[in-house]
């Protein structure tokens, strides 16, 4: 293992059908038309010296170091800004060029501090490298005149993760351009002219107070120590790297974990990562400190009752105790009285093992996963209409889209790296339609403005999609040839007649939706008229009582306009968690095995029975909400939960905790004592993504390797713990490495037959289906025909949710995420990301605030028919009147105390996005929060810790 270095070609690669052949230093080289001379030289192995150029951004031509001579041309053009031409003869090194480059470097160095030996970028500094490369031996100008480093300008250390040291800046503009071109935030600029030119964050602010989103693109782009990770400043240069995959959102960015022995020094996005192409966000890039946080639990623990103190025990004792409890419960209450929950944070291999343990060792199908509460409607809806439970495209596809429709998703916060790609395409001229009750950032952000923002009332997605489809059908915008060739005619005719009904017109539904008919018509025409129209959606679609219906309505609309089955189009779920796609693929649902095959199908069951050597149940098992219902009712008594925190994340908290309290054995496998662990009897310490081998599958069906960078803190990786439990239960598992688990998955899953660790290493990553028909995987699905054969249109009647605003609860609450925090916050709350978002706020429109006499920052009670919590109010016009919003990142906010038991009709995915609430000013915390704090303090004591605030 050594430090992973990637070749920098200086300028971006070009794609062209036309190639150009030229001669560089007497050697012939052929490259795509449009390639720069610098890139062409790099392609043949010659690095032209450079400072302002790097291949993640367009050429800038400011440093004058990459000069070359070209036969027949005057002067010495910059190789970064000069495109190749046929027959061109280039020399990258001549005495004249060497002299010029030395002169340029001499000027740079004459204005740079010479503290190389003690500089944090020592050994990783392009300025230092270039001084060496051009053979700089003296600086004739001395250091006495006007300069930028004496006296040193103050360092900006406001960002928790990196420093800005202006004295070391060479004003190459790479950071400014990275912020614009790569991230798309435009937070940085060069202020002043000539000698006064300097990098500035925002309007002369410090980094933390500026619009900077701390994605790290500038730090990566900086050729000197000007922008440098604090972790590197502290630890020194890393010495080896491990290529792995981020464990935060469903984008699944590839990262280099830059290491020093057994310690991570920094995480740097990997250029060859096909999901992120070298970009990152504040979470993956910087918020990994939780992995070694002092609150990590590294010893197994057990207790008889949830009111007893935890007792540290050996792995053997904990595992045997858990197994004997499950056996006891099954003997007493029946085979179906126990179950398990797999984790979307864990690897495919670990998820597969848990569902295998439940089906084979427990002997029932009571297995579910957190997709239940996020994207289960995607699975149902896309499988019904198109034939497979997955997004249709790869992320790169967005660069071919002409009209992008974002529905119920907030990519700049929840899927930031993909959002940067999307924004880049929008800056290139693609049009944008946003369907969201809130004015999300994407609606209007630097150099991006939505053509249409349809701020619908929460709960009216289906009505809006029907109205959009009405316009498409009645205005002759259907792609008739596509539909005739690729879709079931009878279903299409039914659907066409249905959406064409007057009651589905924008005019008829406008009042319900809360958006003008004119805007709906305009948006429908724009989408349907696009050469390539692409839909991207999130939990604003799925987490409704009509979540599955909305997914099918989107698929209907995409099929009707011929927008599935090629690059640039599609229906694309933006998956919440790193491995939520994988968890679903691996058979985490109670009704299906890996590869989405129903447990009642005889041949499928026979396949698994043969592979696993045990008889399997043919009936579907309980889903998470059903498990909790049955626990309260008394028929469900034991639960094995890996890496999931249902006591915080799932709706109707008081019902969830009642279910957990009613169980006789709750086993939690996690890296922290999370909220659910408060109700647990056995705690099995988990391992973070840095501590194990495996694979994650991202939102584009891309299977990427997770590689062990450090040893598991508790001694065992999660897959080893599940194996031990299974063995103790009497069902033997004997895998020696996760690769063997993947081999088994490939044997039993038709869409994975071509997948193995060797193959992933060879290809970098693989998008399933990967089998004999698609040996290198499948970037775009449904090319030439749908997976199910013919596409199936489904009639999508709008049925309002039973959850209605009333006189008592006149506002509608919708919940979501923010950039810096991640879901229940167990990870990000244990990092410095709290400086951006240290608590959950209630966002409310000025009109609603004034009506209630609220001022910014007031403590308010948020009450629904289910419960009441208190939060601080934030007044913002991002909201529409009548709608309030909050995040659910902090346990003590208890936002899910307020959300209801209502759920999607098809999948029981909770209706997080519509809760009727009232908001009023208060001067004390809610009763629930008081109780939560008391319970929390008790649990802290039982875990042998001093509760926060106890010393006062």
């Amino acid at each position, binding site marked *: 293992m050594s430090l992973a270095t990637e070749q920098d070609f200086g300028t971006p690669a070009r794609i062209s059908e036309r190639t150009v052949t030229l001669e560089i230093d007497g050697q012939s080289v052929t490259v795509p038309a449009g390639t720069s001379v610098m890139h062409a030289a790099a392609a043949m192995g010659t690095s032209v010296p450079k400072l302002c150029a790097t291949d993640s951004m367009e050429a800038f031509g400011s440093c004058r170091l990459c000069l070359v001579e070209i036969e027949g041309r005057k002067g010495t053009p910059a190789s970064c800004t000069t495109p190749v031409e046929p027959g061109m003869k280039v020399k990258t090194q001549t005495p004249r060029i060497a002299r010029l480059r030395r002169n340029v470097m001499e000027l740079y160095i004459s204005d740079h501090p010479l503290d190389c030996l003690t500089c944090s970028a020592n050994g990783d500094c392009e300025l230092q490298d270039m001084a060496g490369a051009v053979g700089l031996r003296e600086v004739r100008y001395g250091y006495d005149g006007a300069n930028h480093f004496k006296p040193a300008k103050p360092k900006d250390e406001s960002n928790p993760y990196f420093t800005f040291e202006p004295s070391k800046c060479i004003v190459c503009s790479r950071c400014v351009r990275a912020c614009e071109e790569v991230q798309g935030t435009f937070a940085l600029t060069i202020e002043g002219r000539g000698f006064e030119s300097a990098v500035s964050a925002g309007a002369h602010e410090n980094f933390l107070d500026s619009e900077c989103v701390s994605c790290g693109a500038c730090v990566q782009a900086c050729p000197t120590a000007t922008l440098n990770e604090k972790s590197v400043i502290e630890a020194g240069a890393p010495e080896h790297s491990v290529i792995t995959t981020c464990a935060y959102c469903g984008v699944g960015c590839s990262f280099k974990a830059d290491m020093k022995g057994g310690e991570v020094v920094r995480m740097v996005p990997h250029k060859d990562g096909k999901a992120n192409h070298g970009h990152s966000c504040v979470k993956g890039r910087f918020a990994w400190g939780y992995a070694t946080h002092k609150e990590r639990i590294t010893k197994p623990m057990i207790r008889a009752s949830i009111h007893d103190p935890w007792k540290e025990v050996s792995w053997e004792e904990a595992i045997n105790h858990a197994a004997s409890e499950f056996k006891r419960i099954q003997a007493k209450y029946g085979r179906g009285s126990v179950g398990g929950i797999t984790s979307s944070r864990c690897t495919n291999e670990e998820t597969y093992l848990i569902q295998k343990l439940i089906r084979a060792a427990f002997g029932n199908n009571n297995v579910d996963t957190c997709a239940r509460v996020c994207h289960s409607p995607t699975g149902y809806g896309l499988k019904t209409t198109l034939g497979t439970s997955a997004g249709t495209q790869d992320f790169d596809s967005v660069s071919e889209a002409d009209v992008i429709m974002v529905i119920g998703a907030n990519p700049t916060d929840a899927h930031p790296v993909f959002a940067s790609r999307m924004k880049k395409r929008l800056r290139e001229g693609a049009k944008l339609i946003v369907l969201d009750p809130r004015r999300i950032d994407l609606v209007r952000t630097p150099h991006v403005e939505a053509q249409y923002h349809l701020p619908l009332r929460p709960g009216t997605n289906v009505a809006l999609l029907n109205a959009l489809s009405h316009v498409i059908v009645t205005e002759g915008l259907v792609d008739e040839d596509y539909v005739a060739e690729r879709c079931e005619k009878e279903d299409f005719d039914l659907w066409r007649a249905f959406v064409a009904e007057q009651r589905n017109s924008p005019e008829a539904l406008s009042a319900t939706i809360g958006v003008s008919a004119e805007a709906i018509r305009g948006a429908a025409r724009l989408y349907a008229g696009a050469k390539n129209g692409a839909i991207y959606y999130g939990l604003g679609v799925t987490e409704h*009582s009509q979540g599955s*219906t909305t997914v099918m309505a989107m698929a209907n609309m995409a099929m009707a306009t011929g927008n599935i089955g090629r690059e640039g189009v599609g229906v694309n779920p933006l998956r919440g968690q790193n491995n939520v796609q994988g968890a679903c693929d691996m058979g985490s649902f109670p009704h299906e095995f890996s590869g989405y095959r129903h447990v009642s199908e005889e041949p499928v069951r026979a396949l698994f029975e043969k592979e696993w050597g045990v008889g399997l149940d043919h009936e579907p098992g*309980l889903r998470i909400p*059903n498990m909790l219902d049955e626990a309260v009712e008394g028929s469900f008594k034991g639960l094995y939960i890996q890496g999931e925190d249902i006591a915080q994340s799932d709706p109707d908290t008081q019902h969830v905790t009642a279910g957990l309290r009613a169980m006789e054995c709750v086993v939690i496998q996690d890296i922290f004592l999370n909220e659910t662990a408060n109700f647990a009897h056995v705690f099995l310490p988990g391992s973070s993504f840095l501590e194990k081998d495996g694979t994650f599958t991202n939102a584009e069906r891309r299977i990427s390797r997770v590689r062990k960078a450090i040893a598991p803190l508790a001694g065992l990786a999660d897959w080893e713990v599940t194996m031990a439990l299974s063995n103790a239960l009497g069902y033997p598992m004997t895998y020696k490495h996760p690769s063997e688990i993947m081999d088994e998955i490939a044997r039993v899953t038709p869409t994975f037959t071509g997948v193995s660790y060797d193959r992933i290493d060879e290809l970098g990553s693989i998008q399933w289906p990967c089998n004999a028909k698609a040996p290198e995987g499948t970037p775009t699905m449904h090319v030439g025909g749908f997976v199910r054969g013919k596409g199936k249109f489904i009639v999508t*009647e709008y049925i309002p949710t039973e959850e209605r605003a009333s006189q008592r609860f006149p506002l509608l609450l919708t919940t979501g995420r923010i950039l810096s925090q991640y879901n229940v916050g167990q990870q990000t709350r244990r990092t410095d990301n709290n400086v951006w978002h240290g608590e959950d706020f209630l966002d409310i429109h000025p009109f609603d605030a004034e009506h209630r006499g609220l001022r910014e920052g007031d403590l308010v009670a948020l009450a629904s028919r289910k419960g009441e919590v208190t939060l601080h109010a934030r007044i913002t016009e991002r909201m529409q009147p009548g709608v309030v919003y909050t995040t659910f990142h902090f346990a003590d906010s208890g936002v899910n105390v307020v959300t209801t*038991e209502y759920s999607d*009709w*098809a999948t029981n995915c909770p209706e997080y996005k519509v809760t009727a609430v009232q908001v009023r000013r208060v001067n004390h915390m809610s009763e629930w929060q008081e109780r939560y704090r008391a319970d929390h303090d008790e649990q802290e004591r039982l875990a042998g810790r001093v509760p926060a605030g106890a010393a006062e």
Partner: protein
Amino acid sequence: MSQDSIVRMVNQIATFFATYPRPQAVEGTYDHIQKFWDPRMRKKLAEKVAAGGEGLSEIALEAARKFPSAKS
């Protein structure tokens, strides 16, 4: 699971399929419950039907009656 939530869930499913012709709607509702519900939930539904099926919509009731245990 309480009878109330069983009734709400079945009605929700039946309402989705209600836009299709009656036999299809009943079959769709039945099939969905068969495919996605744990047997003990189906048993509760059957008990509900045996007790008169109060609160179930017409399609829901018709679909629920198709479960064999409903007749026992």
